[in-house]
């Protein structure tokens, strides 16, 4: 991260005073839900060891509700705590979960895929103006240069469809859509150059699989790409297998990924993974007028069809 450039840029600061309000409201709601035994546990964020940071937490005691916070450091998509991250949490009983707009879209997708039922979860939606990008020092203000890439082009600041929506939305500055710009640039290139681009990106991949670990939709018990017999994708971190892995992952997420960009945030090699997912989302919107996660739907675009679908590419 180029720190000097961050400083020299004339920064636009985003008003995050609403997060204080949100924190208070989350606390009181969590307390109420636990006290009235409406839920057995609340998944939210608490302050981390370093000042200004935040980490996921599961609380079961109403008194612990004071621990909960919401800030620009609350980057994690907590939806994975309802499925794969900590399976013992689900066993606790009914859950409440704190969700930003982007997280809510993942929740909606998971419901559509029968991973849990709407009535099993209380969703505390947080009005979100944006969170920090990866590598931001804790406690930094939320500015043009510290905001996550996905937040620059966010369309779900208010998590409509939550059981309760907390916080309030400040006036938002107009930020340049960097990801869209990048995508347009790539689209304008020849296939050969695009290949060159992705090849160089993917060859860096060390197959730590953090992207998979953190993805709400990678909840398979056994990943196809880990299978040996037959081996769909070379499992060693070499260029060929890496390319295969990222293509398969993008295909499996197509029509499901709603762009929380957690994969990209956790990637130690800074591979622009969300770019790929976002491209697929745009294509699905174009082809089938489908946008993932806007509401739980029974069938996604790749588990349904229309007899009149486009087939101009078929001879």
């Amino acid at each position, binding site marked *: 991260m180029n720190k000097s450039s961050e400083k020299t840029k004339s920064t636009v600061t985003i008003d995050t005073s609403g997060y204080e309000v949100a924190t208070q409201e989350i606390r009181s709601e969590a307390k109420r839900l636990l006290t009235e035994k409406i839920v057995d546990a609340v998944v939210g964020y608490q302050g981390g060891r370093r000042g200004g940071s935040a980490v996921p937490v599961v609380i079961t005691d109403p008194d612990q509700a004071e621990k909960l916070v919401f800030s620009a450091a609350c980057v994690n998509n907590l939806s994975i705590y309802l499925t794969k991250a900590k399976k013992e949490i689900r066993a606790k009983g009914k859950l409440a979960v704190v969700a930003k707009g982007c997280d809510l879209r993942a929740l909606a997708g998971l419901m559509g895929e029968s991973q849990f039922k709407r009535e099993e979860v209380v969703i505390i939606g947080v009005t979100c103006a944006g969170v920090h990008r990866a590598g931001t020092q804790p406690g930094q203000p939320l500015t043009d240069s510290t905001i996550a890439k996905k937040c620059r082009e966010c369309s779900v600041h208010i998590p409509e469809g939550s059981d309760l929506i907390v916080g309030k939305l400040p006036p938002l500055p107009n930020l340049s859509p960097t990801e869209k710009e*990048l995508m347009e640039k790539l689209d304008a290139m020849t296939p050969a150059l695009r290949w060159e681009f992705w090849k160089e990106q993917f060859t860096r991949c060390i197959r730590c699989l953090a992207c998979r670990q953190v993805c709400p939709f990678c909840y398979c018990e056994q990943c196809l790409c880990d299978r040996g017999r037959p081996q769909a994708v070379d499992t060693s971190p070499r260029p060929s297998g890496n390319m295969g892995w990222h*293509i398969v992952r993008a295909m499996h997420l197509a029509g499901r990924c709603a762009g929380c960009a957690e994969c990209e945030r956790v990637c130690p090699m800074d591979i622009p993974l969300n770019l790929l997912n976002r491209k697929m989302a745009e294509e699905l919107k174009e082809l089938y007028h489908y946008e993932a996660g806007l509401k739980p739907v029974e069938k996604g675009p790749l588990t349904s069809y229309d*007899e009149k679908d486009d087939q101009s590419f078929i001879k």
Partner: protein
Amino acid sequence: MPHDFEPKIVAFVCTWCTYAGADLAGTSRMLYPSNVRVVKFPCTGRIDPVFILKAFQKGADGILVSGCHPGDCHYMAGNFHARRRFAVFRKLLEFIGVDLNRLEFSWVSAAEGGKWVEIITQMTEKIRAMGPLTQFTDLADEEQWSGALGNPELKAVYDQV
């Protein structure tokens, strides 16, 4: 042989329509280039994009996916599901940088032996002219990141990330 390069073409076909169409081309003794290798499936609905990836990695220069015309699927809707799946997959490959001239789709019915011959002939000629597909096979030979980006425009984009 009259050509410098003979492409390897893999055809993923459904058994009810296209496989039968190719059989018809045979019983009608129509001639076409011998470059195609047919892999038979019960239905295009069974064809996984991973197979296409695998075939490219194993050296296919061109791939054809072919099944029943819409409405003719022996399994009612398998080809409709396949149509969506591949409409999306080809967009992904295009964005990754695969030339879509190498990946074709067709509906060939059991009665369309002539269409099968036409498609295979055209595809073979087209890919022969394009030359071998080395993108995937080259990757297999590489061990790690080269770090070398020749094109300045690309370099700029790459650095932007």
